[in-house]
């Protein structure tokens, strides 16, 4: 009986670590969803593709001999720029046409990148070059790898950076103002187009960072890789309360941990079914998400 208790304890720790890793990825991607929604009320279904684009930029950078520490910022900037271009030539012209056209357009952009990627790069998964030594550490019966540590720490750093950016800089103030009331922000002399572009840039850069980290962690990238994390991140953003930045982080972590606990202790077959049931139950009791309160802090 004693060994069962310690088994349970070790297993639980393993599941929590795996959940935290996956959850950090969901959270990083969810941040972009939530920021873009916060500022222009657009559910950007193409967001998962910025994750994929970041992963591929990282892939080609590392293939060409760049060290990982440099490839990641390059991938972030790269997918940020792609997002800004997409916002400028696709979303901006239809911004005032209402939400539905924008939503459908976002779906179209998502499919465009998935299939253009398959055409240009090829559909088969590519092995991500291991540019850093991915060691596995063992503590008691808990296993974790260098890439897992890297994912959790870099997510944490990026999230703290975002917190600082939104709350303590002039740019952040302008973002919050634009989110709160775009017309009033314009009257105050804020160039809201610039702010929206910047929001897209930051959101996509975070997704790009997540893409590179995922490539490194699992060792594979392919043009369809953005679909599932994009969907899960959307769920995470809604779970935490869409438009609320800490909500995206919390939602991502809750979803990641819940999935791994279901797989570990219960039936793996029903992983997504159970994870999504949790979502539905939470939304039944708190329709605005975990952190959704009356006084919203949007961006």
């Amino acid at each position, binding site marked *: 009986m004693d060994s069962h208790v310690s088994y349970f304890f070790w297993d639980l720790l393993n599941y929590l670590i795996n*959940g935290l890793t996956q959850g950090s990825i969901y959270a990083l991607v969810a941040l972009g969803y939530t920021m873009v929604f916060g500022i222009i009320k657009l559910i950007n279904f193409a967001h998962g593709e910025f994750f994929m684009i970041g992963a591929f930029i990282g892939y080609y950078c590392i293939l060409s001999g760049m060290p990982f520490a440099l490839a990641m910022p390059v991938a972030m900037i790269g997918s940020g720029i792609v997002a800004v271009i997409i916002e400028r030539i696709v979303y901006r012209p239809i911004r005032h046409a209402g939400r*539905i056209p924008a939503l459908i357009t976002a779906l179209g952009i998502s499919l465009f990148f998935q299939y253009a990627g398959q055409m240009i790069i*090829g559909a088969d998964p590519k092995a991500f070059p291991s540019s850093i030594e991915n060691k596995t550490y063992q503590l008691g019966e808990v*296993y974790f*790898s260098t890439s897992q540590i890297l994912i959790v720490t870099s997510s944490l750093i990026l999230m703290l950076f975002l917190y600082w950016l939104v709350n303590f800089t002039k740019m952040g103030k302008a973002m919050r103002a634009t989110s709160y009331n775009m017309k009033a922000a314009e009257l105050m002399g804020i160039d809201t187009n610039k702010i929206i572009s910047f929001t897209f840039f930051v959101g996509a850069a975070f997704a790009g960072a997540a893409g590179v980290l995922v490539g490194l962690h699992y060792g594979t990238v392919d043009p369809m890789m953005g679909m*599932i994390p994009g969907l899960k991140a959307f769920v995470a953003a809604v779970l935490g309360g869409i438009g609320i930045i800490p909500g995206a982080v919390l939602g991502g972590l809750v979803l990641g941990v819940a999935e791994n606990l279901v797989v570990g202790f219960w039936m793996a077959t029903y992983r997504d079914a159970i994870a999504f049931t949790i979502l539905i139950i939470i939304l039944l009791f708190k329709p605005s998400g975990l952190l959704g309160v009356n006084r919203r802090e949007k961006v």
Partner: protein
Amino acid sequence: MTNFKRGLALALTLTALIFSGCNKQKEESATAAAAPVTNLDEIVIGAVFPMTGPIATYGQESVNGINLALKSLNETGVKGKKIRIVVQDNKGEPVESANAVRKLIEVDKVQAIIGSVASSNTLAGAPIAQQSGVPLMTPASTNETVTQTGDYISRSCFTDAFQGVVMAKFAYETLGKKKAVIIIDNSSDYSRGLASVFRAKFTEMGGQVVSNDNDTTYTQKDTDFRSLLQKVKRADPDVIFLPGYYTEVGLMIKQARSMGMNMPFLGGDGWDSPKLQELAGEAINGNYISSHFSSEDSDPRVQQFVSEYEKAYGQKPGAMAALGYDGILVMADAIMRANSFSHADIRDAINSTKNYIGITGNITIDENRNAKKSAVVLETTVSGMKFKQKVNP
């Protein structure tokens, strides 16, 4: 959020409308497709394969194999006609497969269809071919139920009932393993079918399977298996049977080895792709699979195929290339023997194939329209698949 919901509803309605439109079209042209086409300058054969998506290398290899066979076949011609194939990409997805089969029958008016690879895909397209009365032969789908769709559906490869038994015997007798866990790809008919055959044979021989079919599963496109593997590790098996496809298998084995799980993993022909080595790296050493073909086979016919293939495509052929090659040759042989170019005559000729000597073995199509032929057991290593043993039916 209400706007968002309205948008979703709109999208769904539109999709439903489009699909119902397609169905009407199909009813109208079904009769036209069933009429035999006899006067042709060329024989058009449809090919449904995953050219993109998670099992894309299977489609690409199969079509390479088919094209290689056609090159020499068309020099002489079949009954004085050339064979032309129309390749349709099914992206490795069942819905796309059904659409592809429908398009080939209604738009391209093909004489017969070859394809697909994944059993779930072939199963989605087969009923349409059966209803329209167009022969469909799969060169690579091994799930038992595929050919049970009807008399127009056949295959030129062995089935999982054979493959699963080969691996169960290999695990129990050759490796001497007694305690197995089965990890299933939940989105694949192939994986579920193979798993149940392995379970039955392994327990019948005296082995023990310590996993439940719902507890140790994953879904295609999953990338993180650590929690699943932790659970498997706790069950303490001495062998793991993993009937999946190479993309997920590669990742899973890599993660398992990094967690200190060193027991051998066994799989089926779903592993047989050069991508497996690329994705798993060093971790791939010391695992075993059953497959259709080994490029190390010393048979001169096999070696000739291997060198021709390498010359044409610059890489060693995998099992799917060999199966595609044999598949189209079996089909061409049937068209040669058929009384006419009508769909029914081609079907009868395919179904009566006897002792066709292919590079993947001697192909005889039995009364259930399955091929009886040998399997090989291969050891997976970083440098490729090493031939281990050949098992006859």
